């Protein structure tokens, strides 16, 4: 098993470190126990990291602590060299976040193209209006996820998989330096899953650091470089993908082999 802090912190605080967590705990308001506890890890620029673990292990909390949507209760979170507590806004404009699929009212008055454009809000900035270039980026993002023909469709009329693709297009349109993807394969059929897998891997190859949450070992993309295993709010293991998958670390930690963990 990898001792997360020692293995990861030693020699990794170089200029390439994009995410640096040092003894970070996050407690939800009104809760007594932290959702993540004493998490220390380092993710370098260009890494493709998969976070896996059972339900309630703190995977989503970890993502939302990284981009500052949730404020950490203790420890330090530095992203792009910035303290997230102080510079959360700057961090979030440079980070594309795909939220876990949520329910949307079928009669919601939101067109797909406008939802995708809403990903660029922080990038465009206050008191500025979307330019032709912004709309071109939105069109391209929708084309990448195969939803270019759905620009004028209401978001409430999409299937779960189509909605998931629009959320991904929204994050791509942000042109982020880092993607935080929470269960991006949820609701996707096999073909769409393979397409999205390829797209995420392509974006990572082009330089975008990627942190992806999944509850399923089988959904870990081949291009994933590292795996973080979360268990009861702690990092149970963190290391190169092949090593963790080959030496049985994950299955011994999760007590389940080759299936949902």
């Amino acid at each position, binding site marked *: 098993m990898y001792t997360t802090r020692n293995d990861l912190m030693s020699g990794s605080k170089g200029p390439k470190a994009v995410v640096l967590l040092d003894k970070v705990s996050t407690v939800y*308001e009104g809760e007594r126990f932290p959702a993540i506890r004493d998490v220390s890890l380092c993710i370098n620029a260009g890494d493709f990291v998969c976070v896996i673990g059972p339900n309630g292990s703190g995977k989503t909390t970890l993502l939302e602590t990284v*981009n500052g949507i949730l404020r950490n209760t203790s420890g330090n979170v530095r992203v792009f060299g910035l303290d997230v507590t102080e510079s959360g806004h700057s961090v979030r*404009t440079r980070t594309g976040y795909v939220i876990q699929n949520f329910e949307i009212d079928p009669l919601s008055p*939101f067109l797909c193209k406008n939802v995708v454009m809403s990903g*660029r*809000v922080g990038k465009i900035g*206050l008191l500025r209006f979307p330019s032709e270039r912004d709309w071109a980026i939105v069109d391209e993002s929708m084309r990448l996820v195969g939803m270019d023909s759905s620009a004028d469709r209401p*978001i409430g009329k999409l299937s779960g998989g189509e909605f998931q693709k629009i959320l991904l297009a929204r994050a791509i349109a*942000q042109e982020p330096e880092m993607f935080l993807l929470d269960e991006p394969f949820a609701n996707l059929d096999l073909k769409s899953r393979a397409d999205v897998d390829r797209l995420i891997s392509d974006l990572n190859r082009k330089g975008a650091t990627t942190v992806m949450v999944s509850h399923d070992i089988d959904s870990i993309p081949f291009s994933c470089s590292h795996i973080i295993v979360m268990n009861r709010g702690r990092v149970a293991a963190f290391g190169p993908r092949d090593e963790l998958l080959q030496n049985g670390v994950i299955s011994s930690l999760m007590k389940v082999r080759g299936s949902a963990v």
Partner: protein
Amino acid sequence: MISLPFALLVTATLGSILAGLSCSIAGVFVVRLNIASIGFCMSHAAFAGAAFGLLIEVDPLLTAMLFASVTALLLAPVANRAKLNTDVVIGIMFSLMIALAFVFLNLSPGEAASGAALRILWGSIFAVSEYDVLYLALLCAMMVSFVTLFYKEIFALMFNQKLAKAAGVNTYVFMLIVVFLTGLAVSFSLKLIGGLLVYALIINPTSTAYQFFWDFRKIMVFSPVIGVASCIAGFIFSLETDFPIGASIVIVSAILLAISIAISPKRRTAKIAAQAA
């Protein structure tokens, strides 16, 4: 039909148009953000505040604004922290505010104060002054400017608050502005529409617009159009029938909403889709 002096007619007409505009813009926020309970409580808090103003002999508009704004700013965090259901919050706050209003009115000296309080309760054309119209005009200018200048941030916020924050929108500040503007719209419309009814003018026009449009931009445009139309029609209805203006406006807006639900193309499409499935 009631005949009014020309100056009063102009004041009341302008007041109706501006109240319809401000309340229905606020309605887009309230309906979409699912903070109907906050809007509902705010309108009754404004009524209690106005009654308190009469008691301490301060301009009821100021105390109405104060009560509405403080309630709005306290309600969400308190409900969140206490982990109360919104229905429970409505029940507690509605009854508390009405109780406070009745206590303040009971303590208010003289019949004049009681008359003024009753006008605040159900609204009156005669209660609207040139200053009220001016305040409403300034508020409408603020709201239209806010929506125009920050449309993309408002859109992101209305779609999903967490995603808006993740994209770099300062959701806390925008939510504060939205709640504050809603509080002002309620307070400024109180004398005309009435404390018990102003909430309907916030909800009904937006809910009517929702029955027809898939594009949020169109909701943002047509909700105020429907709000203003409801107010003008309600005003004429009030003059014709001698009904209180607030009640007339709310009845007209409710009829429009009922008709729109019956003929909504969005619902018809949904029904066909459901049958096909």
